[in-house]
C-alpha cells in the first residue's frame, strides 16, 4: 500500500513458509476444538430435546441469541473475566456452533422412520443400542451436513480471534493492516477463505460417503 510496494510479494511469502504453516495449523486446531466440543454439547442438548419435547423452544431461543450476538462482542464480554486466553476464544467459537449443530442433530433424529425403530425394539434392542445402532447411523447424513456448515462458519470466525491475541491466519490480516503491508493481508484473507472452501469440499465428501442412500437425490441440509 506504500507507493512502489508490490500488491503481493511472493519473495516474502516463500521466505515465511514456516510461519504460514504454523498459523494454518493453529487455525485448524482452534476450529477443530470448537466444532468438536460444540458437537458433544449439541448431541447432549439434542438428546435432551428428544426426551423432553418442551426443551425445544428454550434451547432454540438461547442458542439463537448466542448465534445472533456479533462474534467480536461475545469475545469482548468474556475478556474482562478470562483475558485474551484460549478459553475466551473457544467459549465464543463453541457458542456459535450450538444453534446449527443442535438443530441438525434433532432434525436428523426426528427423520428416523418410526417403523425402523419399532422393528429394532421388537428385536430386543435396549435404548442405548437403539441410539447407537439405529438412530445415530440413520441421522448421520443430516448431522454431517450440520458439521459442515458449523466448520465453515467457524473457520471464518477464528480469524476474528486474532483480535484477542490468538495465533491463526487472522493475525496475518491484523499485522498487514497495522503495518500497511498488503502481502500479509492477502495471505491471511486468501488462505482463510481457501481453508473454508477446502473444509466445505472435504465434508461434502464425507456427507456423500456416510449416506450412500441419498447420493442420487443429493439433498443438502
Amino acid at each position, binding site marked *: 500500500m506504500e507507493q512502489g510496494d508490490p500488491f503481493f510479494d511472493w519473495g516474502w511469502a516463500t521466505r515465511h513458509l514456516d510461519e504460514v504453516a504454523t498459523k494454518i495449523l493453529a487455525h485448524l486446531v482452534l476450529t477443530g476444538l470448537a466444532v468438536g466440543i460444540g458437537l458433544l454439547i449439541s448431541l447432549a442438548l439434542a438428546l435432551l430435546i428428544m426426551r423432553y419435547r418442551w426443551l425445544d423452544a428454550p434451547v432454540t431461543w438461547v442458542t439463537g441469541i448466542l448465534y445472533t450476538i*456479533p462474534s467480536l462482542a461475545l469475545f*469482548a464480554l468474556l*475478556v474482562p473475566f478470562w483475558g485474551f486466553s484460549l478459553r475466551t476464544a473457544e467459549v465464543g467459537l463453541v457458542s456459535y456452533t450450538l444453534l*446449527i449443530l443442535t438443530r441438525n442433530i434433532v432434525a436428523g433424529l426426528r427423520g428416523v422412520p418410526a417403523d425402523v425403530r419399532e422393528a429394532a425394539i421388537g428385536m430386543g434392542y435396549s435404548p442405548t443400542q437403539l441410539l447407537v445402532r439405529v438412530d445415530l447411523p440413520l441421522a448421520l447424513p443430516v448431522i454431517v451436513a450440520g458439521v459442515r456448515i458449523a466448520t465453515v462458519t467457524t473457520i471464518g470466525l477464528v480469524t*476474528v480471534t486474532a483480535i484477542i491475541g490468538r495465533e491463526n491466519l487472522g493475525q496475518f490480516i491484523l499485522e498487514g493492516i497495522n503495518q500497511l503491508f*498488503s502481502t500479509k493481508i*492477502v495471505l491471511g484473507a486468501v488462505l482463510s*477463505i481457501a481453508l473454508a472452501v477446502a473444509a466445505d469440499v472435504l465434508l461434502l465428501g464425507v456427507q456423500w460417503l456416510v449416506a450412500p442412500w441419498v447420493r442420487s437425490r443429493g439433498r443438502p441440509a
Partner: protein
Amino acid sequence: MAGRAVGPLPGTAGVSGLLGDTATFVGDNAGLLLQRIGEHVQLSVVALVIAMLVALPTALVLGHTGRGGFLAINAANIGRALPSLALIAIALPFLGLNDRSTIFALVLLGIPPILTNTYVAVREVDRDVIEAARGMGMNAGEILRGVELPLAAPVMMSGIRTAAVQIVATATLAAVIAGGGLGRFIVDGFATGNNASVVTGAVAVALLTILTELGLGAVERAVTPRGSIRTDARAARGARRAVPGGAKGGAQ
C-alpha cells in the same frame, strides 16, 4: 499479534465491580455512545441499501425467468465461506483505510442471503396462480408486480432480515481498520485495558443486533398476506433450508 501484550487483566472487583465501572463509563461517555450508535447504524443502512439494490432486481429477474438457479441458490453457501475480517482486509489495498472498505465488505456479506431468499421466494410462488393471472390477461410485468412480489414478500423479507443482522454484526469490525461504529469501544478498550469500554461496546452492539432481528421479524410478519399464512410458512421453511442457519443470521 506476535508481540502483543496479554490484554486487559481480569477485573479484580468481579462482576459487580465491572457493572459499576461500565455504568460510570456510559454516564461519562453518553454523547460519544450516541455518536457511535449513529455511525454504526449509518454504515449498516448504507450497506444494506446497496446490497438490496444489487440483489433484489437480479434475483427477481432470475426467479421470474427461472435462469441462473444454481448460482442464486448457492450464493448463500458461498457467502458463508467468506470470512468477514478477510473481506474487509482484502478491500483495504484498493479502497484504503476508510469506511469504503468496510461498506464494500458489508455489501458483499449482505447480497447472498437476499439473492438466495428472493430467488427461492419467487420460484416457489404457486405456478397455478401465475397461470391464472396469465389467463386473466396480465403481462409479465404485471404478474411480477401484482402476483409474484406480494406472494414472495415474506420470504424475501426473511432474507433481508438475515442480511441486515449480518451487516449490523459485522459493522463492529470497522473499528479494526480505524473506522467508527460501536466496535471502537471494544478495540479501544482492548488497546487501553479498559474493560468498562469493552463491555459497553459489546453490550450495545449485541442489543443493536438483537433489535434488528426482532424489528425486521415484525416487518416480516406484517408483510405476510393473511390468507396465505400456511403457504408462506411452508415457503419460509424452504428458504431456511436454502440458507441454513440463515433464519437467524448473525455470526459474522
